[in-house]
């Protein structure tokens, strides 16, 4: 500021990254003022632009502090500095945002994800003297709604659903004050001027009175309340009331799938779950996802919260509204997504009344419109690594930087995603932008949700895809939808047949492999151990067990599970007992079918029908799938005969292993918390003894034989390739004549164990050990053949903590470099990342 002896210098600084809508300009203002610099800061086309004038030392101090002190929600990707002529400015100022009709380029400024309530706002909410006291929409630049309320970029109040609420003078003052925490916080609101909440009966009629009290009373009476939150409605009931939970399950037709809870605070959750530092950090972070935790044995919880598991999906209140729900005696709420089965999350009051009235006894409504749906995200810390089960609220629309081919900087594309657990992805400017959880698209409503979310994200990111990537399953509805999108239906602007976008068909498991590669910033080649339920192989076989080598362009299949004719196709997937019968029939012929009849006596007649269907290939599909093998084994062990939800049998089988490997409280010390991107492998390698102990403890339960199929031997009577008694899979070059892996020996040994009365826990552990060892053996063969050191683990089966941990540790022990999913789920929710990465790299 002062014109001292040091000649003043001037610099133009461009800061890119997540730097808008996160309190960056006030931060710059405060920093510059503190250092006595003149100039200005403004939101520009590509990021935050700063002009600095002052002493060189101060400018240097500014640049250093920029990174070190940046606001918590910001993420600086790059700081570019260039010299500029001195203009002799005397003050530092915040320039007003450009007019809304900025060029398309301007929209690059990113739309931030929704952020959980910050501690300062929390304090104000609890302070009777503050004007935000008890106000359910309190927020500031460090917290609050973003993605779910934004209609248009640039991110300004007028372009959000807060436009309907003109600010009162007090809020306006905060908003205009560069030194206030609410400076340009677009959703700023208070009880005087902001949205309101009300309680309504089952008929939707407002009940006059304090909504918080009415809500708590209703919950205490055992009612189910549909509550409008941030990204949609929740169905809420008392988490400690088994009767209410049972009623919710009955009405929602959700007999067994685990229900998520929201706990009053971390202390409450610690009383019912084991929580590591890493899990606590995830729970309390700005994304506030549901974290799948280990339930404490001494927790007195209703048994119908998460039957068949030792876990509990829990989260903390993430909006001020949620904080208000709890009190001393009401500390745990079931919060399940408010949608009738299979339909998109309900987000508006009117639709809630029609779609949820059969489930809810009462409603809590508010009048802030939800522009974009966002389901709760679900994560789990497995082997000290954060794994996504579902990536949605709090993360979307954050971009995931991925390897980008040189010379294709301008390329944009859409990866449409998978058929179920769908999320799509837009690719552009070096990153993949995954959509929120879309879910199923087999209804009109699901399809509308998909197309609307696509249009929204295209608009918010200002990305217009030039290319479409999709799965090659001929009967995915998504396959047809991709075509319609490519031809201009449902896109924001119509395209004619002549200008239709090119479409890339991407094989399912290649996409899973590519997702793991791209997520780790790699292009391959790598060995891919991809285990899931269903993916279409180009040969027409339904696959879910593929061991590949490949990169972002191409792949080769080397090993797969011996295929089984599955009678009834998709219907069999809901019937693990039928899958088990089909596996036995394929492995042991007539004897196998008879055995199935003996194992499932009350279904013997149906087994016989299934046998005939399989024989005549009536509605019978050849399936080579890990998911189906898990189903079959779960049924054979008597754990789960019917799937009432997707993946139930596999989950319940995974829950029965003896060691809770890779999970909090399994007896071992967690690895030191490494900061962010430090590779877990390094940590494991750094503690070889510990890793070794863990692996040995797991393997001590033993394993079953699994063998490579040999051509000459046909389909029957295959023994372990090496003849070792307990049947570890050791794959020498010589024994590998086809890539088919036989499950016959495994099933024989398993049935033998069952006969001998071996405990289920041991059998479950042995089964898991077998799969992990098989992956290890296959990877070893492929490394020998190809020299490839990297192994990528992908597919929904790797959401199984034991399998994930053991496979990873076994591979690390063998000297492999193991890649696991980082920012997207291992399941089909992450598929779009791989589809797009391949489409991007495969070339013209």
């Amino acid at each position, binding site marked *: 500021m002062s014109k001292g002896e040091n000649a003043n210098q001037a610099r133009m600084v461009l800061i890119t990254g997540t730097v808008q809508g996160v309190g960056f300009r006030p931060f710059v203002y405060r920093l510059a003022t503190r250092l006595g610099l003149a100039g200005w800061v403004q939101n520009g086309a590509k990021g935050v632009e700063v002009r600095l004038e002052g002493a060189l030392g101060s400018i240097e101090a500014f640049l250093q502090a920029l990174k070190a002190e940046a606001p918590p929600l910001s993420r600086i990707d790059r700081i570019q500095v260039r010299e500029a002529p001195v203009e002799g400015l005397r003050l530092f100022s915040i320039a007003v945002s450009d007019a809304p009709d900025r060029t398309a380029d301007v929209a690059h400024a990113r739309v931030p994800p929704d952020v959980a309530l910050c501690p300062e706002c929390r304090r104000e909410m609890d302070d009777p003297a503050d004007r935000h006291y008890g106000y359910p929409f309190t927020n500031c630049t460090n917290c609050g709604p973003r993605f779910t309320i934004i209609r248009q970029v640039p991110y300004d109040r007028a372009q959000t659903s807060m436009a309907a609420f003109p600010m009162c003078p007090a809020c306006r003052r905060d908003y205009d004050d560069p030194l206030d925490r609410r400076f340009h916080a677009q959703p700023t609101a208070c009880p005087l001027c902001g949205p309101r909440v009300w309680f309504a009966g089952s008929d939707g009629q407002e009940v006059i009175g304090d909504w918080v009290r009415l809500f708590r009373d209703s919950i205490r009476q055992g009612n189910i309340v549909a509550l409008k939150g941030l990204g949609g409605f929740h169905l809420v009931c008392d988490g400690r009331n088994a009767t209410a939970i049972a009623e919710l399950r009955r009405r929602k037709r959700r007999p067994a799938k685990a229900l998520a809870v929201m706990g009053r605070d971390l202390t409450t959750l610690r009383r019912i779950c084991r929580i590591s530092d890493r899990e606590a950090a995830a729970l309390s972070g700005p994304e506030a996802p549901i974290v799948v935790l280990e339930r404490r044995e001494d927790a007195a919880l209703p048994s119908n919260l998460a039957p068949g598991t030792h876990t509990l999906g829990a989260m903390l209140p993430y909006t001020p509204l949620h904080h208000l729900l709890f009190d001393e005696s009401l500390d745990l709420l079931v919060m399940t997504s408010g949608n009738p089965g*299979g339909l998109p999350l309900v987000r508006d009051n009117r639709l809630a009344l029609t779609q949820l009235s059969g489930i809810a006894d009462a409603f809590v409504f508010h009048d802030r419109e939800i522009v974009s749906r966002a389901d709760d995200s679900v994560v789990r810390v497995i082997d000290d690594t954060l794994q996504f089960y579902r990536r949605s609220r709090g993360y979307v629309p954050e971009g995931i930087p991925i390897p980008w081919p040189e010379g294709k900087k301008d390329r944009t594309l859409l990866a449409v995603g998978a058929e179920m657990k769908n999320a799509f992805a837009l690719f552009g400017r070096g990153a993949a932008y995954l959509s929120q959880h879309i879910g199923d698209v087999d209804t009109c409503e699901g399809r509308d949700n998909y197309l609307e979310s696509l249009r929204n994200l295209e608009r918010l990111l200002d990305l217009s895809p030039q290319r479409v990537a999709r799965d090659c399953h001929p*009967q995915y509805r998504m396959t047809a939808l991709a075509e*319609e999108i490519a031809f*201009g*239906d449902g896109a924001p602007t119509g395209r004619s047949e002549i200008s239709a976008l090119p479409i890339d068909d991407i094989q399912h498991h290649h996409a899973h492999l590519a997702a793991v590669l791209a997520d780790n910033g790699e292009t391959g080649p790598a060995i891919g151990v991809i285990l899931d339920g269903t993916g279409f192989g180009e040969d027409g076989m339904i696959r879910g067990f593929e061991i590949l080598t490949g990169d972002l362009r191409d792949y080769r299949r080397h090993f797969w599970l011996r295929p089984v004719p599955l009678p009834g196709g998709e*219907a069999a*997937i809901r019937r693990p007992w039928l899958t088990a019968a089909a596996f036995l029939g394929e492995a042991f012929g007539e004897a196998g079918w008879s055995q199935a009849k003996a194992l499932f006596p009350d279904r013997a007649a149906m087994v016989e*029908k299934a046998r005939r269907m399989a024989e005549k290939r009536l509605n019978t599909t050849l399936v080579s799938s890990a998911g189906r093998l898990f189903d079959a084994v779960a049924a054979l062990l008597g754990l789960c005969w019917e799937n009432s939800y997707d993946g139930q049998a596999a989950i319940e089988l995974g829950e029965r292993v003896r060691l809770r490997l890779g999970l909090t409280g399994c007896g071992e010390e967690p690895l030191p918390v490494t900061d962010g991107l430090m590779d877990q492998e390094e940590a494991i390698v750094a503690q070889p003894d510990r890793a070794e102990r863990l692996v040995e403890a797991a393997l001590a339960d033993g394993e079953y034989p699994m063998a490579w199929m040999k051509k000459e031997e046909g389909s029957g009577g295959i023994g372990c390739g090496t003849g070792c008694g307990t049947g570890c899979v050791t794959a020498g070059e010589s024994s590998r004549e086809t890539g088919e892996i036989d499950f016959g020996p495994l099933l024989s040994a398993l049935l033998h164990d069952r006969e001998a009365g071996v405990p289920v826990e041991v059998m479950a552990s042995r089964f898991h050990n077998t799969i992990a060892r098989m992956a290890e053996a296959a990877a070893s063969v492929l490394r020998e053949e190809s020299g490839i050191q990297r192994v990528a683990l992908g597919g929904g089966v790797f959401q199984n903590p034991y399998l994930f941990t053991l496979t990873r540790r076994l591979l690390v022990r063998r000297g492999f470099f193991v890649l696991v999913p980082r920012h997207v789920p291992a399941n089909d929710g992450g598929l779009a990342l791989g589809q797009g990465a391949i489409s991007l790299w495969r070339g013209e």
Partner: protein
Amino acid sequence: MPEECILLAHGDGGALTHRLVQEIFLRHFDHPALRDLTDAALLHLPEGRLAMTTDTFVVKPLFFPGGDIGKLAVAGTVNDLAVSGARPLYLTAAFILEEGFPLADLEQVVASLARTAREAGVAVVAGDTKVVERGCGDGVYINTTGAGVVPAGRDLGYHRIMPGDAVIVNGTIGDHGLAILSKRAGIEFDTPVESDCAPMNGLTDMLLERFAEAVRFMRDPTRGGVATTLNEVAQSTGLNIILEEQALPVREEVQGAAELLGLDPLYLANEGKVLIVAAPEAVEEILTTLRRHPLGLNAAAIGRVEAGTGVGRGPGQGAGQRTGQGSGQGAGRGRVFLRTPLGGHRIVDMLAGDPLPRIC
């Protein structure tokens, strides 16, 4: 045993052929135009537009619960005429026989074909027989060609369907497809499922006589079932069709068996069913009329026609804006939806090949 089976010589035009024609075909098909075995049948037709159709029947197995290939060969062709608004009058029947096919079976098929034709009031007026070598056929294939007349004043077609119309079916769906499939696989159910195979010209004629104006369109949902037929309607008109899951008439035993086999009754073939698109105000009367007919006892209104509003837009509050060009009278591409008890609208696609699992 040459007498008991079809020989190649049965098809060479010689003595055996003659015997076959006289002793089996002519004995069952008795019509003046046929008796003289002239080269062509010379027929009188009443006033109206001539309707003609042809179909070849290759069903396996030849005999199934509720019918056989002979009955099917009449019902299939007669129904195609009937749903076009025609009164079926004449049939031709051409047989391709496989060497070794038992004569007794042939006789049974022919008798069934003749009986069904009599019931439908149509005359078999021309025929043909060929024999193929053993292994080159599945016993017997039959082609039938049918001719009929559409009386003046009847006008059915896609062009008459409009938003608001109701979709009606004359009875339970999926019976034929399931009967065939389970018989083919040798699967027996506690309550056997019978094919609905039957000529429906009596029923359709009655309906058109009473509701010439209200009935807009008819189709028999054979191969591909109700789902496929309605998809054709939706695509041809650009209109949406919303089916009510709870209104679909499906026999309990069919539902149970279909569930086990992993099949959807909406996609199973029918051979005695007609889908009727009709004006909404006439629905109740039409249903009452249908239910008085033996083939319409379980008639039900199963859905309605709505304006097709493009890709992103369904029956709910969609947001799509179609920019392309629609076909037909609708503003967009027509689709079929199934409204479930939960209130969702499941998309009912056209079946393309055998269903493959999609669940991961």
